């Protein structure tokens, strides 16, 4: 039951991020989603009572709930990015699209993969929804920071799949992936700085010098 609620929370947060119009809301949404994810993994770790999963849970908390959102906020403050996300699709349409995507994810898990087991099925559904919504955010939000967040939402979705469906990946892989996410965010942050310095904005939609 608790697990179901948490999964629901992850999905709701994904929707909330689609509805978000401001950067801080987006970052908050991500933090909250990560927190739900943390709770889920914690429950899983507690159930299986595995040390490795506890370590993963801790890292999740550290990286996704604390470090990354803080870093992004810091970047946003440093470059004095305005709060606007550069929505190319307004929130209402975005929400409808997100619902549609979730429905597709639902169909996909039900029909194509057909994994037995209530929890695994819904976890896969939620994780796919989150992944697709993350992609959707990346496609429709014009600002560089929003794209980073979209990517992170995708990663969250994948992590959910990894954590629940497979009952946790091999430990070293998990660690490497966390390390990797941290690195991605930092490097992307550096590039956001560079973009801001060279272009005096972070509107990546206007980065169309290279084409054809």
């Amino acid at each position: 039951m608790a697990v179901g609620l948490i999964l629901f929370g992850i999905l709701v947060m994904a929707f909330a991020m689609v509805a978000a119009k401001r950067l801080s809301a987006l970052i908050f949404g991500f933090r909250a989603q990560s927190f739900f994810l943390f709770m889920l993994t914690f429950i899983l770790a507690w159930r299986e009572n595995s040390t490795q999963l506890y370590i993963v849970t801790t890292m999740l908390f550290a990286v996704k709930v604390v470090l990354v959102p803080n870093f992004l906020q810091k970047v946003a403050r440093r470059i004095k990015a305005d709060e606007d996300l550069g929505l190319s699709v307004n929130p209402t349409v975005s929400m409808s699209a997100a619902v549609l995507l979730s429905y597709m994810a639902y169909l996909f898990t039900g029909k194509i993969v057909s994994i037995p087991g209530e929890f695994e099925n819904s976890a896969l559904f939620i994780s796919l929804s989150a992944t697709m919504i993350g992609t959707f955010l990346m496609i429709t939000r014009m600002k560089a920071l929003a794209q980073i967040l979209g990517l992170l939402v995708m990663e969250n979705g994948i992590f959910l799949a990894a954590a629940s469906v497979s009952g946790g990946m091999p430990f070293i892989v998990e660690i490497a992936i966390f390390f990797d996410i941290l690195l991605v965010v930092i490097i992307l942050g550096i590039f956001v700085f560079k973009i801001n310095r060279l272009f005096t904005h972070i509107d990546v939609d206007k980065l169309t010098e290279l084409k054809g």
Partner: protein
Amino acid sequence: MQLAGNFGDLSGDYLSLFFLFTILLISVPAAVYSTGYMMGEYGGKKKAVLWALLAAFVSSMALVVLTANAFVFLVAWELMSLLSYFLVVSDFKHEKSVKAGTIYIVMTHIGTAFMTAAFLVMFRYSGSFDFSALKEACSTMPPEIKNIVFLMLLAGFGTKAGLVPLHIWLPYAHPQAPSHISSIMSAVMIKTAVYGMLRFVFMILGIGAIWWGNLVLVLALVSCLAGIMYALTENDLKRLLAYSSVENIGIIMLGVGASMVFMKMGLPAVSLLALCAGLFHLINHAVFKGLLFLCAGSIYKATGTRNIEHLGGLIKKMPVTAAAFLAGSIAISGLPPFNGFVSEWLTLQALFTGAVNTGGSYKIFLCVCAALLALTGGLAAACFVKAFGVTFLAVPRSRAAERAGEVPLSMKAPMVFLAAAAVLLGVGAPSAIRCISAVADSVIAAPAGGITLSASLNTVIIASAIFTASAAAFYFMRPRRTTECNTWDCGYYKLGARTEYSATAFSKPLRIAFGFFLLPYSKTEKIRDSFYHVRSFKYEVFTTPVFRDYVYEPAVKLVFMAARQVKKIQPGSIHVYVAYIFATIVLLVIFMGRF
């Protein structure tokens, strides 16, 4: 992992040797010629590169005709194209050369793609690239596959040979290459395509249906006529010669196509005769076209121009070149007793014998073929009267032509050699035909007894008759007293280069008569001092190259248009790019069952 087959095998049959002989017959004089031609034209380093390329080019051609393995054939073929490309663009500072090279290599490569496909379809049945294995496999091939293979081979070899409508590269590439290279390319390289046709269609694939021959015949006729008509209206000497190569390839393929038809009709003797005619014309064309290109090179070297409208009177300045060019012109116009005559005569004989032995519509078709070949011959004579007359006779039309001087011995000697070969192949035709019929015999299994002709030909008698009659006339009517005077001027006092008949004017009747194909148009430009007084008047006449304007250019335009549309998929927006990935995965998942 290993390809089956013997890659080192060489084929030493008569066909290979015949082609090897032809290659060497032209390449060696051309190489000698190049020593003089390149002198002062290129620097030492570049000369060395050109020499190396030339040697490699000739070797690759030799490998093409000698190998007994289709894979090695393909490699050698590509090498030949590649090396000749570099030779074509050797005057790389000119935009034109680069363009010519591109057109050449592009056309050739498309042809090679067809060839490759044909080889691989055959390979599918044989599992080996050896000629013998391929031949065996082809006997078990279903007829419809055979048809496809034949069409692909025809497209592949036709491109290299310059069969209309695949001839488009010839008038670009041949003029732009250095003359000794144009000579080799036009005289022998395009012949390797005929070798390919004989080797792969006749000997390996086997003639599958009579329409193969008909198709080749029709293409050959179109090549003959289109080639010579373009040559007639051309004023750039080397382009003229290139178009004339299209015509002559047509004549060769006429023999080859007729041979295919007769073979399928069950007339092996006539088939042999037709093939003989084709092969004989092949070596003849090699000789005189090689010669003519070398002469054109000498003219270019001496005057710096290839436009015959700027030449004239060179016969007095360059007597040896003129004589050599005259020999080439007579030969290429198919006039006795030179070699071109014999092979054209043989082709006509083959068509005639075929017509005698067949009935109904084929009789008429073959007769019309012969008539059109005669038309080609007549037009070729007109074309080379123009080429020789305007270039060498009368008064020089430019300063460059006035100042021209004879070329050095290293350039003269090869020309004289090839001119002598042209005479020898003509006068010694009976022996030459015997040799060639042995070659043709190795291609098609014909009944014993060699070729049979419906009429005999002895060029020695003709030659001696002409010679005796001329000499007798000379003896009795030799001029005793002559007076030198100006050309009759109708009372106009300023006769000179400007009042001479120009090349454009010479070809005008034909341009008008064949206007339905050449689509001529003209541009005039008047500069007036006043309404009544025109200070200068410029008149230019052009013909429309229909194949270029109505086939190739639209096709190329279409391809570029499509490519530009494709370019739009990359608009530069990262959001679109991410959407692509998203859409791809979604679509793939939806259509997963299809894979």
